[in-house]
């Protein structure tokens, strides 16, 4: 069967009941969606399927013939970050990073769908995405900033902060 993953046509050999998460990670080498619970309970595996955020761990690949799949790998690169990636960086919304891919894909679908910076609406859009590090505040800040159309200054470096190197905290 065939999928489009981040704009690339990919042929899939896994059986039809294989969860999309396993196809992406184990067959196609797309590692940003994470295995957190494989029960649809944590959100770490979320990818965008034909414009909608979906739990890839619960999605049998057999029903996805011809679908367009977007993952974090398609949002941007280190030298050319997408706006959601910029916002998560600027607002320190990623801590350990494990829930981040799923959070960002849900955020991307939210803003692409015309979501506003209303915090309750953002919380609703991210409901079911578990983060054990941040307490969620910075994540909601980041999504709200994208929805507002903020621009992000990512030029801050250790040197510009007055430190001689990343490790010099004297």
């Amino acid at each position, binding site marked *: 069967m065939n999928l489009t993953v981040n704009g690339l046509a990919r042929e899939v050999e896994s059986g039809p009941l294989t969860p999309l998460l396993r196809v992406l990670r184990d067959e196609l*080498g797309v*590692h*940003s969606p*994470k*295995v*957190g*619970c*494989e*029960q649809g*309970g*944590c959100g*770490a595996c979320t990818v965008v399927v034909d414009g909608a955020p979906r739990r890839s761990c619960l999605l049998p690949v057999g029903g996805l013939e011809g679908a367009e799949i977007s*993952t*974090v*790998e398609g*949002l*941007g*690169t*280190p030298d050319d*970050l997408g706006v959601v*990636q910029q916002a*998560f*960086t600027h607002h*320190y919304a*990623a801590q*350990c*990073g*494990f*829930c*981040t*891919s799923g959070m*960002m894909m849900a955020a991307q679908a939210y803003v692409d769908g015309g979501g506003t910076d209303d915090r309750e609406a953002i919380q609703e859009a991210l409901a079911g995405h*578990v*983060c*054990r*590090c941040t307490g969620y505040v910075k994540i909601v800040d980041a999504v709200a900033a994208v929805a507002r159309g903020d621009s992000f200054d990512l030029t*801050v*470096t*250790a040197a510009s*902060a*007055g*430190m001689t190197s*990343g490790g*010099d*905290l*004297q």
Partner: protein
Amino acid sequence: MKAVGARLPRYDGVAHVTGRTVFVDDVRVPGTLTVKALRSPVHHAGISVDTSPAEQMKGVHAVVTHADVPLNVYGHLSGLGIPGDEPLLAEDDVRYKGQPIAIVAAEDEDTANEAVAAIKLDLDERPALFDLRKAFDPDAPKIHHWGNWYPHFENEMDRRQIRKGDIAWAFDHADVIVEGVYRPAAIEHVPLETQVCQVVPEPSGRLTIYSCTQALYFSMGVVAAHLQVPLNKLKLVGGTVGGGFGGKVDTATETMCSLAALKSGRPVKWRWTREEEFLCSSTRAPWHMEIADAVTKDGWILGRKMLTLHDAGAYARFSPYGLTKHSFHHTGAYTIPNLEFDGYVVFTNRVPTTAMRGFGVTSVSFATETHMSRIANVLGLDPIEIRLKNANRIGDTSPNGIVYSDPSTVATIQTIAEAIGHELPAAYRTTTSAKREGEWLPEHLVAQLGNPEDH
């Protein structure tokens, strides 16, 4: 202090937001076998195991039991000279539900699960103990070969004990005795990344171990001890942790995966399911804390008697260390000159407990702060003022005799009072952490502070 308040780049921030951070489960090595474990289905039992049905299955490359472990029984505190108590893989007894008995390395996940199911396990189930308060009852289930509480504190004492000052004097001179019991429950850390490990046997004879541990060099020592190999046979790759919070301090997977890699000669990976993470991974401990304080009508705490029971679960791991930290903090951020503390590390049939965000101290902070407010309620005094009165000051001594050189308690409490709009009398608004004198130096502290070296 250039970093404080500055916007600094996260060294791993861009990798996180581009999906390029390589967590252990993202490491891909061709030919990797899948590891699954046979775990105890009951809380407490004698066991006998027959792994031969699994060994004969097609696609199974290794079945590892205690018989394959060069040093099966080891303790997380063995490096400090404390005898080991926990088998890597269960031998004749299981003491908690989920305790690993055998592991299987197979071509794929389905085969590994089938092989685990094929292992014959006979159980002679025994009564289980879950309430740590009942561990001392004469008819309580016997959990551990050491007895129901840890016997190896200094001088082979069976408890962590602190004696400071003259506790009898304090209780003789108290206006009121304020008592309280505090019992925080176990908490699972729930990292989004479950326990996971990849081990690759190298042609050189070394093992490369990709680990999600929070304590890389500690884990290296634990693996080397169980395997009875020098450290230079192990290369650990780590530092990328998908959430730990203390739950990835214990060495959970690395040693067993190393044995499976050695026995099969193949790379292996073991990623716990979410169910395993909840049922079998270590938790924050349940605690039972009883406090009795000798206090004066005007809010000075003359003395504290405290009994702590720390639930270690089935094995000691780091619990004696956690209880020791707990004991050093059992007066909170306050100075109490006369102390009688007894703490026990108690064994139950729960999963072994471990660090979580302030190992041993979070529990006692909850108890001591709640107790401060309780004292204020009993005496009809202001809860902020009573804290400022007893707050640590320069020259005061901790329960374990450390002389405070720069305590921040007074300024912290004043800042909190201001932030919540809590009006304080001038004397409390302006008092500082300076060495005690005048009204901040009551008679009962004079003798103690005269010569802190005595404690």
